[in-house]
């Protein structure tokens, strides 16, 4: 089973190191405009949400591509672009519901997360594990456990309140 990026925005401290290492490891260049992962920020509320490609099953970018340059790689669990076929029409950029397909205006090329061929650098550098790389079918288990913990904590709090009354 392929692994997927699992983003837990509650753990994100907003430092954007993921953007830096993404751009440097792919292009040897520091420039967030080249990063495949981007941290969206609402500084006034202290809210930071890393956004990256979801590697969709029924990927709109893949479906819209007029020259079939985009395909799914089941082994790595990713959607990838074949640059020998790509004509740079940017249709994929237009349809991606997550804004995960970008266009590099310097190199004149679309680009997206390629999961670093199975060793995502954003995950490797994020000490907080706000970005993690886990088995696709484990993502829900993770979330379920976290949610259950919250339910349990809320239950205890309610019980404590009741005993006070």
């Amino acid at each position, binding site marked *: 089973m392929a692994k997927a990026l699992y983003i837990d925005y509650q753990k994100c401290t*907003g*430092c954007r190191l993921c953007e830096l*290492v993404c751009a440097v490891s792919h292009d040897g*260049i*520091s420039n*967030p405009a080249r990063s495949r992962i981007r941290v969206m920020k609402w*500084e006034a509320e202290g809210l930071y949400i890393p956004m990256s490609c979801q590697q969709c099953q029924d990927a709109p970018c893949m479906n819209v591509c007029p020259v079939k340059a985009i395909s799914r790689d089941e082994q790595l669990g990713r959607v990838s672009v074949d640059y020998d076929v790509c004509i740079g029409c940017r249709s994929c950029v237009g349809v991606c519901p997550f804004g995960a397909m970008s266009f590099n205006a310097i190199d004149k090329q679309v680009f997206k997360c390629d999961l670093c061929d199975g060793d995502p650098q954003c995950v490797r*550098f994020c000490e907080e594990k706000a970005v993690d790389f886990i088995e696709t079918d484990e993502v829900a288990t993770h979330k379920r456990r976290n949610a259950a913990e919250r339910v349990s904590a809320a239950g205890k709090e309610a019980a404590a309140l009741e005993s006070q009354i």
Partner: protein
Amino acid sequence: MPLNRKIAYIDLTTGDIQTKPIPLEVRKKFLGGRGLDAYLLYNHTKKGCDPLGPENALMISGGILAATCASATARTHVMAKSPLTGLLGSANMGGFFAPELAWAGFHHLVITGKAEHPVYIYIHNGEIQIRDARDIWGKMVPDAQWAIREDLGDEEVKSLVCGPAGENLVRYANVMTGIKNSGGRTGMGCVMGSKNLKAVAARGTMDIKIARPDEALEYNKRFIDQIISAKVNQTQGALGTPFIWGATNSWGGIRCRNFQYNQCEYADDIEPERIDEICTDTMGPYHMTGCYGCQVHCRAQYKIPEGPYAGKYDEGPEYTSQGAFGGETDTPRALTVLVGNHLVDQYGMDNLETGSLISWAMELYELGIITSKQTDGLDLRFGNDEAVIEMIKRICYRKGWLGDTLADGGIPASKKIGKKSFDYLIQVKGMSNLHSDERATPGLALNIATASRGSDHLRSRPAIDLYHLPQDVLRKIYGSPVPYDGPLSSEHTEYIGKPWQVFWHENCYMGVDCLGICKYHTTFLGATLPNFEDWSKVLYYNTGLEMTPEEIWQVARRGNMVERLFNLREGLTREDLEKGDMLNHRYFEEPCRRGAIDVVGRVIDKEKFIKMIDELYEHKGLDQDGMPKPETLKSLGLDKEPSHLL
């Protein structure tokens, strides 16, 4: 390449804008950041210039490693002649501005003149515009930044701004970016206000090519592992800087009631764990935030839980706000510290200077030197929480006689108040000390007395002196990158070897400030953290510039010497109480009343202290009057200043 980032000269009077490359010869002498800013200040201001006049030059910069793959290269540096001290003005902050400036094509800005009406400077991919800021003038620090984003229609813009305190020419107004990243000391926001400059906004998507990306990445990973493995950074990452409050207060290193006590009693309410408990809305294990590319994430996030400011979001409070609005004023209540911190973040005002001056005024009020007529009826006794909050507001808006008086800074205020008030003012070179009490720690006392920007802990403090490190560890740290075989002591109450430690840290901190790295990533609070040896490598991997650790040490010495030259030109003398390397008499005369058994009863021994200064001057290559020896200047290549290379 980081080395192709440019310098821009912006004249706000004429609107003239010039950009230039930074020659390699200058890079090798000063690297960038604070060191190069000091050189620019010395070269672009004239002796005796008015700090609030158009002739004062305001430098804004990122370090040479800004936005590169070295760790935590987020620091922005700001420099000008200080309106608070009349000497060197210099402040450094984290956040996201310096990297954005670098992506926009620049490392250094030199801003002179005065705009006709409020303006802001917008820098975007090599282009610089001066834009109207009349609608933004008067806005609080965060609101001003959001207004600029709206004006430019770009949510990614990062701005450096001054708040209402800067506009009202409070002499210790901050330059700020984000919610609370503050270039807090020496009144750089006041210089912005005096130039009618509300903000400098940057947005960039220009490539910074990393010289050796693979090595740079792997080194960064090792750097992070090393930094994260330090206990001090783990604790800091969970609680923020307030983690040192409890320990420092218990041994007796916190000023309380201005300078009457060296410990604040009943202070558990302002411990970070307690703040965590009451700010349930946002605090918690993950509610920490960090600066660009940094894995320490030392800033806590909070919402004020109750009272008139309930629900307001802010970051911090740092250790300094605990001291400024809890310790010194003897108001150790969480809500007072949270609200005080929030107000100075909104106004853009130095928390350290504000808290210190309020506590000084409180002591004067209790002594009858300030009357209730002068406070407009405000009961300014110690422990009065409302009075602290009210004074913060009055200072920012120069309201009432005392608010207006304190807004001018300690020394001018002491002249206006008269009656021995100066004797009670805890300052060096016109800048108030932070809330720490150095009577039991001669090394730290030497640091605040001789720091280039006045009483300050971030320029040369041998903070690890408090850890009682064994001799072999001390030898390893302080014997590199240049040999030292003189005495060193593990005892923080000793005088032996401290001048070398202060000299070493002065160069270490200048080093990080030139590179643009945060002090939490070097030998400041953690004894095992990287310094010169590692910098030589990260500099090479990221910029391609080959410099040995000894050469970086020389760059740091050079930067410190230029700062010294500037201060000497503007009137620094060795023993002057207003403009010298000297402490207030209370350090020598009033013994510590509280704290650990080896702290109670301590004063600084003046004779030994003066000998420490002699020794420090010797290490720095100064004569006994504190003037640089001709051979020192020659060896640092500073014998022909100002040399106008840029």
